[in-house]
C-alpha cells in the first residue's frame, strides 16, 4: 500500500446475502484533498463510507485510511479520523459547549486543550455568544457548521462528511464549503458525499458511483471534458441513465 495517500481503496467490496452493495471499488485520495463522493440513492455510497470509517467490515478488498487498515486497525483508525453523520451527531439536549466538552473528552483532549480549541472554534464560527445555547435551539445551518467543527476538534488527518448540507439554503451551503476549504488548507483531507452537483464543482477530485461501482473518477473539469458534457448534472444523468438502460 502506498503511503502518503490519505485514503487508499483497492477492490473494496461488500455483499449482503446475494446483493452486492459495493462492487470492487478502487480509488486514492491524496492528503489535503477535498474529495467528492457522489452517486444516486442506493448506489452504495453509504455502505462504502461505512467501510472506510471502520463501521462495516468489507466482504472483499482492502482499504487504508490515515495509514490504518480498515479491517485490522480500527481502533487507531478511529482516533485519526473525524466523522459527521447524515443524521447529526450533536446532542440536542446539551449546550454547544457541553457537546464540545463531550467529544473533546472522548478523543482524549485534556480540559485545557478542550477549552482552548473550543474557544477558537466558536470564535471562528462567530458562535462565542451562543456557547451556552442548547443545540436544539439552533437553526439547521448553524447546527451543521457546528457538527463539522466538532468533528475536527481532535484535529484528525481525514474527515468524512456524509451529506452534510441537506436542507439548508444556498448561502449557508456556501459558508459551509468555506469551512471545508479552510480545513483542507490546514492539511485535513475532506471526504464528502453529497447530492448537490454544484457542490461537486467545489471538490478537487470526485467520483460517481452507479450500482455499486465507480463509473467516473477524476477532477470535475476532466470528467466533463471526457464525457462531452457541459455540466456535472448532465454527466450524472448520462451515467445514471446508462445504468438504467443497461438494466432495462
Amino acid at each position, binding site marked *: 500500500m502506498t503511503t502518503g495517500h490519505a485514503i487508499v481503496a483497492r477492490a473494496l467490496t461488500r455483499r449482503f446475502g446475494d446483493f452486492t452493495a459495493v462492487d470492487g471499488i478502487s480509488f486514492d485520495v491524496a492528503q489535503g484533498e477535498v474529495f467528492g463522493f457522489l452517486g444516486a440513492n442506493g448506489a452504495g455510497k453509504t455502505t462504502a463510507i461505512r467501510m472506510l470509517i*471502520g463501521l462495516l467490515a468489507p466482504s472483499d478488498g482492502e482499504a487504508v485510511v490515515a495509514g490504518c487498515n480498515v479491517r485490522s486497525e480500527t481502533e487507531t483508525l478511529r482516533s485519526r479520523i473525524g466523522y459527521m453523520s447524515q443524521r447529526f451527531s450533536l446532542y440536542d439536549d446539551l449546550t454547544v459547549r457541553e457537546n464540545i466538552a463531550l467529544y473533546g473528552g472522548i478523543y482524549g483532549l485534556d480540559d485545557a486543550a478542550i477549552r482552548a480549541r473550543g474557544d477558537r472554534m466558536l470564535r471562528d464560527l462567530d458562535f462565542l455568544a451562543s456557547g451556552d445555547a442548547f443545540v436544539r435551539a439552533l437553526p439547521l445551518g448553524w447546527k451543521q457548521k457546528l457538527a463539522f467543527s466538532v468533528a475536527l476538534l481532535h484535529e484528525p488527518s481525514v474527515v468524512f462528511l456524509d451529506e452534510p448540507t441537506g436542507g439548508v439554503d444556498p448561502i449557508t451551503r456556501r459558508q459551509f464549503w468555506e469551512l471545508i476549504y479552510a480545513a483542507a488548507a490546514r492539511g485535513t483531507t475532506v471526504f464528502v458525499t453529497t447530492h448537490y452537483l454544484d457542490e461537486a464543482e467545489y471538490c478537487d477530485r470526485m467520483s460517481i458511483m452507479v450500482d455499486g461501482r465507480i463509473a467516473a473518477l477524476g477532477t470535475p473539469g476532466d470528467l466533463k471534458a471526457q464525457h462531452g458534457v457541459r455540466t456535472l448534472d448532465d454527466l450524472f444523468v448520462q451515467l445514471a441513465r446508462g445504468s438504467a438502460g443497461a438494466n432495462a
Partner: protein
Amino acid sequence: MSRALRALLRKEFLQIRRDPVILRMLLVMPVLQLLVLANAATFEVKRSLLWVIDQDRTPASQGLIERFRGSGRFVIAGSSPTAGPADAALLRGDADVALTIPAGFASDLTRARRATVQLSFDAVNGSQAGITQGYSAEIIAAYADELAEASPRAIPTVRRQPPTIEIQRRGWYNASLDYRFFMVPGILVQLVTMVGTLMTALNIVREKEAGTLDQLNVTPIRPSVFIAAKLLPLWIIGLFEFCLGMVIARVVFGVPFEGTPVLLLVGAAIYLLGALGVGLWISTITETQQQALFVTFALLMVYILMSGLFTPVRGMPDWVRVIAQVNPLLHFIGMTRAVMLRGAQLLDVLPQLGALSVIGTVILTAAVRRYRKVAA
C-alpha cells in the same frame, strides 16, 4: 477513570437531569406505584356476604347466625326459607356464601349432640373461598364449644379427668397480618427493576434512533467504556430509588425492618447489575423506543408473575419452581422479605446472594458480548 469515560458520564447525567419525561418516570412513578399498588395488592378477605337459609328457626339456629354476624367477617346479605333465592344471589354475585341450617338442627343437637349444616361457596376465587371456609369453620367450632359448655353432658364419674387441649395460634413476622407488609418489599423490587431495565433499554435505543450512536461508534471509545457509561448512572439511580422506597415503606406503611439495611443494599447492588444487563440486551434487539418499551414490558411481566411477588412460590408445581430459579427477581424478593420481615442475617441469605451474583454475571456478560457483536 479514563477521560472518555468521564466525558460520557457527564453527558449521561446531564441528559437524565434535563429530560422531563425521564425525571417524572424516575420520581413520580415509584411513589405512585408504591402508594397505589401497595394498597390495591391484597388478598385479604375483609368481609364476606352471607346468605342465610334457616329452615329450623330455633334459638340454636339463630345463635349460629348471630355468631356469624358478630364475627365481623361476615355481613348478612339476605335470607330466605328456600335455596332458590340463595342460588340467584350467588349467581348474581350478591352473596359469597350461603349457609343452610336444615330443619331439626336444634333437636339433633339435644338428642345426639351432633348436627349438620351446609355451606355453599362462590368458589370462582378459589383461594378466597378457602379462606372464607376457614373463617366459617372457626366460627362453627367455637359455637360448638359454646353449646357444649351451655349444656354439659352428664359424665359418669371417672377417677381421672379427661384431658383438655387448648390450641393457640400465632403468626410470626407479620403478627398483624397486614398484607402490605408482604407486598411492599416485593413492589419495591419490581420498581427498581423497572427503572433499571426500562431506562437502560430506552436510553440506548434513543441514541440509536437519533443517530448519535453511529457517531459514537466512530470514536475511539471501546464498547466496554460506552456500556459502563450507560449503566453506571442508572445503577446509581436504581440504588437511590431503592433507598427512597425503603424509606417510604418504613415511614408510610410502617413495614418492619428487622434486619440490617446494609445487607439489603448489597443485595440491591448485585441485583441491579442483572436488571441493567437485561436492559442492555433488550437494546440490542430493538430499533425503536416503542419496541424497547414493549419488549421490556412483556419480559418484565413474565418475570414478575414468576417471582412470588403476588402469589407464593410454593404454589408453583415443582417443575415450574425449578425454572423459576433463574429469575433474579425471585431471589431478590425472597431476600428482601427475609431481611425486612424476618430479620435474616448474612448467613441466612447467602444462597440468594450467591444466586443473584451468578445470574447477574451471566446476564451482563451475555448482554455485553451481544452488544459488541451487533454494534461494532
